[in-house]
């Protein structure tokens, strides 16, 4: 609509009367308000005021029942149980009778009045003090309620507290509760300063679903605190149930096997004859294992040893217990936080890179061609650096091997030669990092996005990262930057690479299912308290990696060979007929002496899969500073597979001490 040209003809009559009419209407409206206010506040104000004086409304929050956590079969793992608590509303309790009331209460509770006073004075006057820590049963509660007229401001309420019926089972996954910190108050949408919130694990991650919405009751009370009438009640909305993907029975077995693995490792260490006193390994203390579904990312078991009891945090944990657990790193969920070099388990990635990119040792053009797996390798780099590398079989050589043999026997020489080929061909080009690109696509060096808090993402070194470090953290890298030796270290899972067991599980699962990278997850669904499903949480495909079926097939065969005739053979020899359906890869991270001169033993890895004709589970076992992967980790994985196949789980026996 365009503006019209000015109208030459003018309306003779003055029409601002129309605005005047509006003004009158508005005035009438506002006058109505004025008179109504006069009526409410002045004419009848005294009546309202009297009502208001009686109308000291006491609003009491009704805590919402926190939702349960159950395993995939519905077994209760975390729940809320009602617990009677005495509360004293210090706003209602007149100061002059406070002493009297405390003495009377102490008599009923059969404790000293001093204790009660201390409990009351933890809360500032004018607020509601909860007397936590006093044993109250139904009889005591009735006694208090009967004497209510002489106990102004005293209430007995049923407060739900958190209970974990299976003590430490799945402790790291479940997490624990605690009073909200300032960060929690910032992070959560509807926190209450005195209501515990999830601090770790599923309790933290799914807190918004578990928490529910508190309700409230409003009473009209007189100034003495007597309830005159109930004004209204807003019912609390109970929290939802979180159903996990984990299987409590499997978890219990895995946790038991982990302890057995630590014992096995220590037994082996005790047998070792070590001449150099500086190389006597400290006892093995930590281990972790997980079982994940290859085609969905659902985690069926996730255990970390040592563990803790979530219930220890209910009502506050004492300092000594906390520090003791903390010293042993018991709160660390090693499956998602334990960063270790993946060692030879990384050779799978190098293997896939070699096959997919057709890069083999110099003079070799197919995975079938062999080179000698010699005892050592000396390498000259284009940058004039020279290195001498030993295979783990040193001083023995390990015969002629092709890619398949090298994988089965975990021959470092072959994989180093692959690294040298990559370096010779692609150094300082954009294809220099093909191994890291494959590793990253499969999920290493980045968060797996598991639905648990505080996941570590690890390190996946390359030239760019080294340059960043030279900028920001120069003490971490040498001046020359990224060298061929770094790549050689990396292809056998040493040097500039650390991963979590879960990252390795994701990488292996994605390779075995043909390239689908799923979000690993511990929660299956959100349900109402009555068990009705509100939301199903997975599977969630994060991305797909293009990998040829022939490579997958070849890898599948070679992983089976690792178990039937390779580095894990002895660990699996007693498994029984199902052994043909298991494949995997051992890994042994190098022992080292730290800057304080402390010797750290090798870290043992085994990553296995079954059944190999159509892979369904990936099992990762990592024993921190536990020795050889073939000797310690593989036997533990064997026991887990026996359980998965429904066979009798036989005790752990040492496997072959390899890769050291």
């Amino acid at each position, binding site marked *: 609509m365009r503006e019209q040209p000015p*109208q030459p003809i003018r309306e003779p009559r003055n029409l*601002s009367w129309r*605005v005047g009419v*509006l003004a009158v209407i*508005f005035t009438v409206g506002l006058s109505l*308000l004025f008179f109504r*206010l006069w009526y409410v506040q002045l004419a009848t104000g005294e009546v309202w005021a009297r009502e208001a004086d009686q109308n000291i409304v006491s609003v009491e929050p009704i805590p919402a029942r926190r939702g349960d956590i159950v395993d995939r079969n519905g077994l209760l793992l975390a729940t809320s149980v009602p617990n009677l608590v005495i509360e004293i509303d210090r706003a209602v309790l007149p100061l002059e009778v406070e002493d009297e009331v405390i003495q009377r209460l102490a008599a009923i509770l059969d404790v000293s009045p001093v204790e009660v006073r201390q409990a009351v004075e933890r809360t500032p006057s004018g607020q509601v003090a909860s007397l936590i820590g006093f044993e109250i049963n139904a009889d005591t509660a009735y006694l208090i309620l009967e004497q209510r007229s002489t106990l102004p401001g005293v209430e007995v309420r049923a407060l739900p507290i958190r209970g974990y019926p299976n003590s430490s089972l799945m402790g790291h996954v479940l997490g624990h509760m605690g009073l909200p910190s300032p960060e929690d108050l910032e992070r959560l949408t509807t926190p209450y300063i005195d209501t515990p919130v999830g601090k770790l694990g599923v309790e933290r991650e799914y807190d918004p679903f578990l928490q529910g919405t508190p309700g409230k009751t*409003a009473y009209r009370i007189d100034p003495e605190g007597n309830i005159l009438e109930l004004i209204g009640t807003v019912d609390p909305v109970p929290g939802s149930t979180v159903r996990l993907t984990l299987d409590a029975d499997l978890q219990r077995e895995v946790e038991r096997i982990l302890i057995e693995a630590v014992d096995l490792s220590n037994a082996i260490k005790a047998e070792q004859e070590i001449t150099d006193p500086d190389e006597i390994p400290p006892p093995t203390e930590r281990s972790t294992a997980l079982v994940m579904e290859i085609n969905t990312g659902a985690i069926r078991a996730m255990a970390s040893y040592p563990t803790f009891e979530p219930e220890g945090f209910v009502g506050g944990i004492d300092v000594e217990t906390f520090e003791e657990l903390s010293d042993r790193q018991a709160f660390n969920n090693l499956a998602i936080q334990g960063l270790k070099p993946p060692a030879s388990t990384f050779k799978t990635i190098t293997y896939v890179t070699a096959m997919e990119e057709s890069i083999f040792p110099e003079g070799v053009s197919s995975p079938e061609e062999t080179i000698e797996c010699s005892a050592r390798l000396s390498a000259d780099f284009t940058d004039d650096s020279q290195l001498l590398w030993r295979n783990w079989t040193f001083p023995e050589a390990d015969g002629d091997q092709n890619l398949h043999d090298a994988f089965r026997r975990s021959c470092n020489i072959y994989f180093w030669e692959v690294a040298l080929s990559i370096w010779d061909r692609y150094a300082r080009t954009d294809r220099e990092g093909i191994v890291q690109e494959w590793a990253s696509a499969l999920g290493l060096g980045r968060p797996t996005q598991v639905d648990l808090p505080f996941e570590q993402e690890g390190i996946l070194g390359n030239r760019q990262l080294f340059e960043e470090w030279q900028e920001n953290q120069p003490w971490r890298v040498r001046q020359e930057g990224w060298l061929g030796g770094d790549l050689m270290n990396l292809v056998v899972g040493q040097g500039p690479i650390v991963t979590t067991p879960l990252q390795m599980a994701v990488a292996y699962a994605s390779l075995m299912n043909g390239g689908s990278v799923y979000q690993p997850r511990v929660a299956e669904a959100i349900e109402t308290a009555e068990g009705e499903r509100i939301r199903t949480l997975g599977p969630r495909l994060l991305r797909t990696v293009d990998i040829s079926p022939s490579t997958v097939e070849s890898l599948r065969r070679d992983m089976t060979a690792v178990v039937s005739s390779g580095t894990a053979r002895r660990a699996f020899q007693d498994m029984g007929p199902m052994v043909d359906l298991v494949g995997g890869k051992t890994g042994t991270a190098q022992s080292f002496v730290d800057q304080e001169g402390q010797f750290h033993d090798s870290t043992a890895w085994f990553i296995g899969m079954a059944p190999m004709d159509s892979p369904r589970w990936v099992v990762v076992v990592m024993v921190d500073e536990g020795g050889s992967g073939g000797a310690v980790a593989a036997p533990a994985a064997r026991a887990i597979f026996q359980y998965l196949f429904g066979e009798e789980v036989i005790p752990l026996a040492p496997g072959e001490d390899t890769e050291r």
Partner: protein
Amino acid sequence: MMLGDRSRSGVGGILEDRPRPVPDVLMFLIIAGLMALGSVMIYSSTYIRLDEETGDPGSAMRKQLVFAVAGLVTYLVCSMVDYRLYRRFQVPIYICLMLALFLVLFASPQKGATRWIPVGPFQFQPSEFAKVALIVVLAALLAPEAGRLLTWKRLGRALLAAALPGFLIFRQPDLGTMLVVGFITIGMLFVARSSIRQMLVLGVAGVVGAFAMFQLDILRSYQANRLSGFFDQTADLQGVNWNLNQSQIAIGSGQLFGRGLFQGTQTRLSFIPSQTTDFIFTAVGEQFGFIGSAAVILAYAILIWRVLIVAIGSPNAFGTLISVGMASLLSFHVFVNIGMTVGLVPVTGLPLPFMSAGGSAMIAMSGGLGIVNSVWRSRSPVGEREPNDFW
């Protein structure tokens, strides 16, 4: 523009020495005062609860102060912009307002209605802006026809322009805002020279429409409940009349002088739902009594009076109609909001201008009054009547 033309033509050469019209300082002071009072009222009715829940008693007030500053800035910016510009952009303005009202229907519902679009940490409420935008569009649609009564064709066009957003607002559902749109439209049509017959036809149509809404179950059950609850205030004190009863106790107990700042037991214990938004006036009533309440109503009356003065003094119909629309908007909000807290009208969720907690209404209304102030600034400085295409 108009001033420039006159000085160029030589008629008003002396005008250049005269001061340009000053902005309406009184309007600005009243708006800022209401905003400040609102923030204090919000603090007085939230500090205890917030202190208990989060340990930070001032968070609600600080948030409101941010909105207040944003509102004042918007007011000043809109005062600077020449309001005649909006006339050229009436079509894009209308498209934007329809789009926002349409999009909000797909936002996730809160408290049973989809009125808000989350924008970062804030909740954007398009219907608040839509009201002001609609005033501008209606003013543009109705202004050009000078010197004659309103034709049916133009009337129909304006009604359609108002009905489309009205329908979308009703879908949210937001009955209160829909009624505001209706009231503004009628007020502006009246000043835009609609005939008696046209007003009568509109009135009859309105009554029939309201009756049909009740009969055809178009109203949500809670809306019907609030209305029927209003007509029988003694029934169901714990249910629908809960708000009403509590708010009257709070205001009534203020009596002549009020209980004093931070002395109001009712508002402090914050058991009136929507205490800081729709029922903020209860805090004034309880703490400052009849004197304070009457002063607040007086402040609104002066504000509305100033806007109507601008309507009469506007050099053109566009400015007159914008001012009339804004005056209608303000009056309706004030009347319905305060009326609801004292049991004069049924409970409908309309914010009290410049006082209720929330940013959308604050910024939108500040912007609207800024436009009115822009009309004021462009009037003739010499007091003689400009060639107004209206009168």
